[in-house]
């Protein structure tokens, strides 16, 4: 079932939660709404579910306008951030709830209901937990009960609010992969909200990056990561080094290095922000190909698959570089070493005065 959101706006008092948002989600897609808190992602999810009503705009599922239809008629599965399990009911009763409250004629028979609940319990691998109460379950188990409960009513779409938000790192990782497989098995159109960029990039077919009630960028995870449309997206997805510079005679001058730009028509003295991912900076003892700059190693963190090195340039700007363990050992780096940092890939955001934004990607890495 496809979801279409058209020109949705929503304010809470003075606060603009959503400002004219439009979005189309295809059948069977798993889409992440990614953004910092206050970006409106949860509000958008709740509007799709019908738990909030928009000030303007419309929501349709499979071409059918549901903007004014009641939550209970929408057939939308919703998994709440803190699961919102019914604390007075067993796991079985929690999952059965949606079936028990159906109008008498649609209500399944006792045997049918039992079969359906146990099928879902098997799906979420909680067969042994049917008679437990939510308080007796771990966070990950509660999460799965919440999911089974939402799926019990055979929803047309599945909405998840920060599905892994309150779990510890290891459980989160496991559940993430499990949810991806589950989604692929049952193929239900799903939207989930997260503020964790790693989660969004790893799990989703498409990522919607939101900021202050607006959509910054929509795209496949690698598109969004490799080609961020705005400085915000670049900043939000992964660690990043920021340099400030200006353009003179088609050459970018940063405090650390200079670089000839492939654009000829930028006016002189255009200010520019330059972003470079830590893994696209390379350290060497010898001077390498420009652009490059000199820096002194301040800290080295060797834990994990990547070694993280913090350096300071001659002007005092802090730069972060990541490299594989192998390379680190090969170079034999030590704190206090003075090294050359070469730039393998950056993104330049010239700040135009006329408001036109044109970004320059410089994939300097030869792959």
């Amino acid at each position, binding site marked *: 079932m496809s979801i279409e959101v058209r020109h949705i706006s929503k304010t809470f008092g003075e606060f603009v939660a959503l400002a004219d948002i439009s979005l189309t989600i295809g059948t069977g897609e798993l889409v992440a709404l990614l953004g910092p808190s206050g970006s409106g992602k949860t509000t958008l999810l709740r509007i799709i*579910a019908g*738990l909030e009503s928009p000030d303007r705009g419309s929501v349709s599922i499979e071409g059918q306008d549901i903007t004014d239809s009641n*939550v209970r008629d929408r057939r939308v*599965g919703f998994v709440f951030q803190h699961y919102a399990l019914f604390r*007075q009911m067993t796991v079985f009763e929690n999952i059965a709830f949606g079936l028990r409250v159906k109008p008498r004629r649609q209500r399944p028979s006792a045997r049918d209901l039992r079969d359906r609940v146990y099928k879902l319990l098997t799906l979420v691998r909680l067969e042994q937990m049917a008679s437990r*109460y939510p*308080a*007796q379950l771990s966070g990950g188990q509660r999460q799965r009960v919440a999911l089974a409960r939402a799926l019990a009513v055979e929803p047309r779409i599945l909405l998840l609010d920060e599905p892994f938000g309150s779990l510890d790192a290891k459980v989160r990782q496991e559940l993430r992969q499990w949810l991806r497989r589950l989604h692929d098995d049952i193929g239900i159109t799903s939207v989930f909200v997260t503020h964790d960029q790693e989660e969004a990039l790893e799990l989703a077919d498409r990522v919607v990056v939101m900021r202050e009630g607006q959509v910054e960028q929509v795209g496949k995870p690698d598109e969004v990561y490799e080609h961020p449309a705005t400085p915000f997206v670049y900043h939000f997805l992964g660690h990043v080094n920021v340099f400030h510079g200006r353009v003179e005679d088609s050459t970018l001058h940063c405090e650390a290095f200079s670089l000839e730009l492939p654009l000829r028509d930028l006016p002189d003295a255009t200010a520019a922000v330059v972003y470079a991912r830590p893994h696209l900076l390379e350290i060497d003892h010898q001077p390498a190909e420009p652009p490059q700059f000199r820096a002194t190693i301040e800290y080295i963190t060797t834990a994990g698959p990547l070694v993280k090195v913090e350096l300071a340039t001659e002007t005092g700007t802090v730069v972060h570089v990541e490299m594989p363990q192998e390379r680190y050992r090969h170079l034999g780096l030590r704190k206090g070493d003075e090294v050359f940092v070469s730039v393998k890939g950056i993104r330049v955001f010239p700040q135009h005065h006329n408001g036109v934004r044109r970004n320059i990607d410089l994939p300097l890495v030869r792959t």
Partner: protein
Amino acid sequence: MMPSVQPGRLASAPPTAAANLTESRLIAGLLIAVAVVYLGLFLVVPVSAVFAKALEKGVATYWAAISDPMALAAIRLTVITAAIAVPLNTLFGLAASWALAKFDFPGKNVLMTLIDLPFSVSPVISGMIFVLLFGAQGVCGAWLMAHDIKIIFAVPGIILATMFVTFPFVARELIPLMQAQGNDEEEAARTLGAGGWQIFFRVTLPNVKWGLLYGVIMCNARAMGEFGAVSVVSGHIRGVTNTMPLHVEILYNEYQFAAAFGVASLLTLLALVTLVGRRAIEWRLTAEGVKRQPRWLQKEGR
């Protein structure tokens, strides 16, 4: 909301805390002694005195006092009053707390404050309010007289005054509980297709049932024990508008101490039963996190 206590965890806790964390034995003993003496002087002695005085002249006199027709009439009126006031206030309390805890609307704070009003007004004034409204010289007095409706110095007045005094109990108990539980479960029920009544009976009510029972017990205790407000509107007509507390006062003023304390002992018993019930519910509320559902609440047909 409730801490999820693991059964056995408490029992297996070390019996004595580390020596450097507690007061010396002397100070601890002294503090306990002070508490016990204080409790004894102000609670145990008066309560026992009630029973001692009631039974002073033997069981026969005691029985005569509480089986006296006037006493029985007072008991009956008290029970009737509570039987009307408590259910109505329970309904009101549920509705008010549901509205206040789960919805936002203009005037919410005003309503919240109004609910507390009976707690902050002296019971005598509460009684006076009804005399002012429905008494012969009151606002509606002439109209009531013309239609031959008696409220003041009659049973309706007693019930009204009792309801006024006891209406905050259930609401006050439920509002913080419902606020703490939030709206999540109700929203989840809505997305699962439940209607308003289904949500209320299957989700909201079960979640607050112990708090509700607690409120009802406190409300009942006050409804049966209320003196001030009822005294003002009652008119003290023996056998007609005397509730138990008023009957006790009359007997006492007539120097029938054994009889007075006999009836008083019934009210004291009610208080003790209330305390035990309350304690049991409090225990229940804390154990909530790990409890099994009581049989009578389990769903039909499984």
